[in-house]
């Protein structure tokens, strides 16, 4: 219990299979997405740079030719160019900045590029002008001039962004699908385990005939046959034990029958016997009676443990049943305080024996029964049996239902078999009810039997 609280709860088998699938798929798809993204971005950027450079080189050539032609002005040369939409041209000629668009002051290229171009080499750098991304190509012209072409890369950026989003979505989708696949696979793989659990529960519930179905799966056939063999073995053992109990009790019953019958014949002729043998005979009779009751209780206990057959169960009125039990023990009908019908599904003779045992117990240990209360609720029928004794100490209240709990002390002629309350507990349990020992309102002992009520309208 305490280790559960300290350690974080471990995932179930199903959860772990699902998690493994999901993490695996996430790693693979993430790796794939990142590499596809990096490669694609590099390739696309490279392409764009090269085409921008090619275009700028052509344009620079054209401008140079125009400038060197007679009557060519920088303004006219730039105006004669027909660049693609969004592309801006900036020309540095004789220390002047010339652009095709005069409405605004020119956006000068970055210093890195200008230094490079001044040094005499062509360069290309990404540059942002008024929040718009461009690739700026700088080409040196003769006589210290320079040609700069700003190619817009908004589309490239958005293409790369969309690619990124798509790849991320794909990775997420792959991860989720893998998790679902994992869930499905684990369910499928664990289905035999579920069957095993259900079968085991059914066997634990007393249905010893349950077996696992033998399926064609090689991986499972070993566990299935081991399980079935184990249950076969268990059933054989239980059968053997039951047969043994049956045989033993039969073997005991036969000589006991002869003994009981013969002793009764002797007692009938007790007047013909001298005093001493007659007293000895009474001892034999008493012990024989005790032995007989003990065997009866043992048999009843064994039979109760075997469970109730549904065809033995019938609707019974506990009010009527308790009335008969109390009457047979010589109690006045006023002892019984009942409301409701108190009808439960049960086996009459078993319940008669159980309640008789409760009454016997009260008479043996606590001066008899003073009150029996029957209450019928929506779901249950409660029976309180209150005695006239000093009550049962708290620590003893569970123990009294154990077998031979009465111990050996104080055995009189009316001694119990030590099985009476154990039989009560077993009987009540197979009827789906409970029995507890508590205090009666006046401090005596109260045994409360709660049984499920019979289905009613």
């Amino acid at each position: 219990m305490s280790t559960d609280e300290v350690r974080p709860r471990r995932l179930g088998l199903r959860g772990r299979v699902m998690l493994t699938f999901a993490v695996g798929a996430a790693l693979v798809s993430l790796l794939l997405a990142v590499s596809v993204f990096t490669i694609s971005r590099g390739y696309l950027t490279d392409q764009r740079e090269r085409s921008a450079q090619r275009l700028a080189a052509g344009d620079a050539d054209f401008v140079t030719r125009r400038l060197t032609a007679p009557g060519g002005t920088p303004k006219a040369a730039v105006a004669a160019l027909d660049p693609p939409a969004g592309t801006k041209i900036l020309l540095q000629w004789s220390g002047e900045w010339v652009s095709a668009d005069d409405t605004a002051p020119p956006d000068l290229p970055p210093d890195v590029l200008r230094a490079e171009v001044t040094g005499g080499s062509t360069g290309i750098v990404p540059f942002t002008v008024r929040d718009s991304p461009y690739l700026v190509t700088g080409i040196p012209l003769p006589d210290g001039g320079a040609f700069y072409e700003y190619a817009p890369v908004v589309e490239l950026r958005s293409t790369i962004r969309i690619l990124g989003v798509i790849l991320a979505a794909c990775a997420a989708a792959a991860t989720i699908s893998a998790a679902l696949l994992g869930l499905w696979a684990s369910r499928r793989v664990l289905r035999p385990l579920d069957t095993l659990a259900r079968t085991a529960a059914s066997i634990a519930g007393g249905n010893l005939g349950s077996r696992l179905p033998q399926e064609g799966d090689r991986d499972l056939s070993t566990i299935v046959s081991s399980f079935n063999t184990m249950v076969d073995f268990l059933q054989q053992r239980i059968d053997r034990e039951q047969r043994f109990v049956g045989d033993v009790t039969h073997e005991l019953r036969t000589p006991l029958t002869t003994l009981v019958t013969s002793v009764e014949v002797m007692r009938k002729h007790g007047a013909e016997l001298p005093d001493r043998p007659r007293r000895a005979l009474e001892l034999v009779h008493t012990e024989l009676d005790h032995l007989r009751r003990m065997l009866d209780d043992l048999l009843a206990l064994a039979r109760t443990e075997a469970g109730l057959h549904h065809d033995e169960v019938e609707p019974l009125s506990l009010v009527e049943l308790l009335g008969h039990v109390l009457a047979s023990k010589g109690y006045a009908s006023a002892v019984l305080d009942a409301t409701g019908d108190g009808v439960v599904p049960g086996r009459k003779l078993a319940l008669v024996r159980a309640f008789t045992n409760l009454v016997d117990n009260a008479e043996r240990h606590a001066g008899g029964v003073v009150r029996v209360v029957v209450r019928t609720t929506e779901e249950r029928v409660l029976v309180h049996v209150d005695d006239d004794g000093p009550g049962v100490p708290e620590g003893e209240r569970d123990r009294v239902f154990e077998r031979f709990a009465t111990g050996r002390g104080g055995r009189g002629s009316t001694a119990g078999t030590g099985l009476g309350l154990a039989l009560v507990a077993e009987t009540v349990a197979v009827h789906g009810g409970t029995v507890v020992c508590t205090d009666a309102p006046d401090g005596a002992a109260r045994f409360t039997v709660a049984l499920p009520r019979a289905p009613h309208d």
Partner: protein
Amino acid sequence: MSLNVLIVEDDDRIRASLRLALEDEGYGVEEAASAEAALARIGSHGTPDMMIVDLMLGGMDGFSCIRGVRQSSDVPIVVVSARADTHDVVAALEAGADDYVTKPFEIKEITARLRALRRRAAVTSQASAPAELVLESDGEDPLVLSVDAGTVRRGDHPVHLTLTEFRLLCELAGEPGRVLSRTALLARVWDRGFFGDERIVDVHVRRLRTKIERDPAAPSVVVTVRGLGYRLDVH
């Protein structure tokens, strides 16, 4: 005149002690150590007044013994069962036994059962009930109960009932149309109280139906009233 009881029991000591006890109670006792011996004894000396049969016998078992006796006789039979198994008792009753006790029994249990059976036999021989009662008149062969003659006829054919079956039918026919609880029937026919085994009633009703009903699977004379008991319908 003392009643003759035939004890069929393979255990010598139980047989001997039963003989002592029953002779003390005033019964005439005969013994058979096996089912075969019992059937032979009945074949040569005629039926006893009552029988006590142990179910666990060497050779032919108690069930077969009862069936064998029932072929020719309706003598009251009390079965002694060592096993408390539900099935044993029901099977013995179905074979034709009238009542049962389980080992180890007290002799007063056996004598109580024997007395109840004797009382039954005595009542049926009294001529106090209405002479004839037609239980089922629709169809070709009416079912007629003659209480004083102790017979049941289907048309011209006599229906053979054991004494217990006959007595059960008489109790039900005594109040036609009224439901009798199993506890009440147990008390009236078997002299057992609330604590008796109601399966005795159920099995006897089943046996009775196979003999008097046109279709025992769908009884119309002795009908079951679920949760209450049985009722005899005259029609």
